[in-house]
């Protein structure tokens, strides 16, 4: 019988084992650093400091949001499109740079006047550690309002790869799994 489990990117076994083997105090320190990074990043996006946000993105980033579909349990493996299929975002560093710079052009009408956003990040869970990088799973609720009465909600899960860089991290991979199939919004002009 098909399983109703929502698919999630699993870290390499070795990275998962390394993570689990760490003493609790070290895991707490990592957890704190990762959470602070994610909160700071959310804050930068909400305060429209997009270039600041982009400086925390690794040059080999893969920023990807597949399309979700309503499928029955027996076809549950097709709930999300796969890499190579169609997606909403399938960005490398330069693609993200264009999105970021677009905010500053003075003619990015979907964001000028700018949206008011609130990125709520929760359920942060580190799932693997390989010395230079951590795999992190988090849930998000992105609240967005525009003009008088437009109000959108986007929520879902993010699978991130955060690479240790100095005191903080660089975002090296972000796979965004929305809970929505049909997007009930005029656009996806926000970053997640």
């Amino acid at each position, binding site marked *: 019988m098909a399983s109703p489990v929502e698919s999630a990117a699993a870290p390499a076994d070795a990275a998962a084992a390394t993570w689990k083997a760490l003493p609790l105090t070290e895991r707490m320190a990592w957890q704190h650093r990762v959470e602070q990074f994610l909160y700071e990043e959310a804050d930068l996006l909400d305060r429209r400091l997009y270039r600041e946000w982009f400086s925390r993105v690794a040059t080999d980033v893969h920023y990807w949001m597949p399309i979700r579909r309503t499928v029955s349990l027996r*076809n549950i493996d097709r709930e999300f499109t796969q890499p190579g299929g169609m*997606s*909403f975002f399938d960005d490398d560093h330069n693609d993200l740079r264009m999105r970021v710079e677009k905010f500053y052009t003075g003619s990015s*009408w979907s964001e000028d006047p700018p949206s008011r956003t609130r990125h709520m990040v929760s359920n942060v869970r580190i799932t693997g550690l390989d010395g230079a990088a951590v795999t992190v799973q988090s849930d998000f609720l992105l609240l967005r309002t525009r003009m008088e009465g437009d109000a959108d909600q986007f929520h879902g899960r993010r699978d991130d790869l955060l690479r240790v860089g100095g005191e903080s991290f660089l975002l090296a991979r972000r796979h965004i799994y929305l809970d929505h199939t049909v997007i009930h919004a*005029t656009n996806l002009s926000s970053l997640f």
Partner: protein
Amino acid sequence: MGQVVIIPVVSEAAAISSADVAGWFDAEQGLLDKKIFVDPAIYALEQQRIFARAWHFMCHDSHVPNTGDFFLSYIGADSVIVVRDEQGVVQVMLNVCTHRGNILTRAEMGNTHSFQCTYHGWNFGLDGKLNAVPGTEPFYRCKLDRERWALQKVAKLESYKGFYFATLDPDAPPLHDYLGEVGRIGIDQMTAHGELEAVDGVQKNIIECNWKIAVDNLYDWYHVNVTHRSAMRVGFVAASVMQPNQQMVMLGEYGHAISGPGISQEQQQVIDELDDAERARLDTLSFAERAALAPRLTERRPIRPAHMKEVMGPVGVRAMGHPNIFPNLWISTRALQLSLRIPRGPLKTEVWWFSFVPKHYNAAQRRMAMKFMSHSFGPAGLFEQDDGENWAHATRAALGPASQRTPQNLQMGLGEDEMVVDPSGQRAIETKVNEHAQRWHYRCWQDWLRAASWQDLQRNKTPVPAGKV
């Protein structure tokens, strides 16, 4: 915001006369009544006289490659199942159980052996036959006529070069005739890329606008320079590609049209000299490299292979603009995508993007094509992000009684251009940025709303113009 979409009940459109319809668009003056974007009675009439009558794109052959592959689509407000049956034949049936009218499948896609209603368990085959009914003997006393209660199929289902279309109206002309030369050229713009394969995943989003604004915008090469300026500023595409002054418009019966960039006869002569290998090679170069090698060519891509001149005709092969198959199928040819603008009430439109890649593409070509598609259109597309609010606000503003007193202006190029009839019989307007196709769209839209039947529409439709337009 994430509300359930309620489709208004389509009742008999209350006593709308031909004179009313005539008043909604003045083709001589290029004036459009804003009421048509918000009036529920007009919406109801459109559902009956356009959507329940026209041919609608359902899928490409490659969307349902295997027996039992299915997905849901819409014909107007009707949910339909598109499925490949056990004989390998594509079927389109209403997604409604014939017993108590429950939706038959809630999954929007997948693979299945049959469709079973979740209410009382009536079970239908991939061909729509009612195969099993719980309680046939004890409750129905074996008196249920299963043949009578098969799934309701569309009236007609036909394909053109692998693209399936369906209509709910048995009186509709054959698909070939419905598409006509201009509609067929529109689809040929896609097949000119070679044999196509659907990419998995349809982007869907809902914009709070009337469907007609989302449709007529595809003909509009005037908005590009303003609406999409930021996409050009950040280097996504060159401005010269986005607003070429060399425009070409073809108009087809029933409201089909192609509007946008064109290749001049002189440029086509240069292309005619090139063999297919050279055409393909030029298409893989960057804009700058190509301009250096072939300065007399435009930047439009693709350079179509030689045999397409035969297929599309000497004028059609030069049309590089956006085709729309009336009412709501946009063919975005450069990016190999099809977009439906599905009405979900007068003030809501669901936009769908189907994407394709030619089978012969290598991995690098496929990656490039996918990149262009995912970054152009769809709700996150660098272009399309900025379209939706224009449409939504134009729709919303039309609700105001004072706003409704002033018509919309669709006058660009009115009376200034000429529809030239080529010796081949093909017709095109070659000019600058214009609003000819938008005017044609609304003129034909009036024909559809005035017609009481298909016969009536065929008799009284506006002929494609020649000469001054």
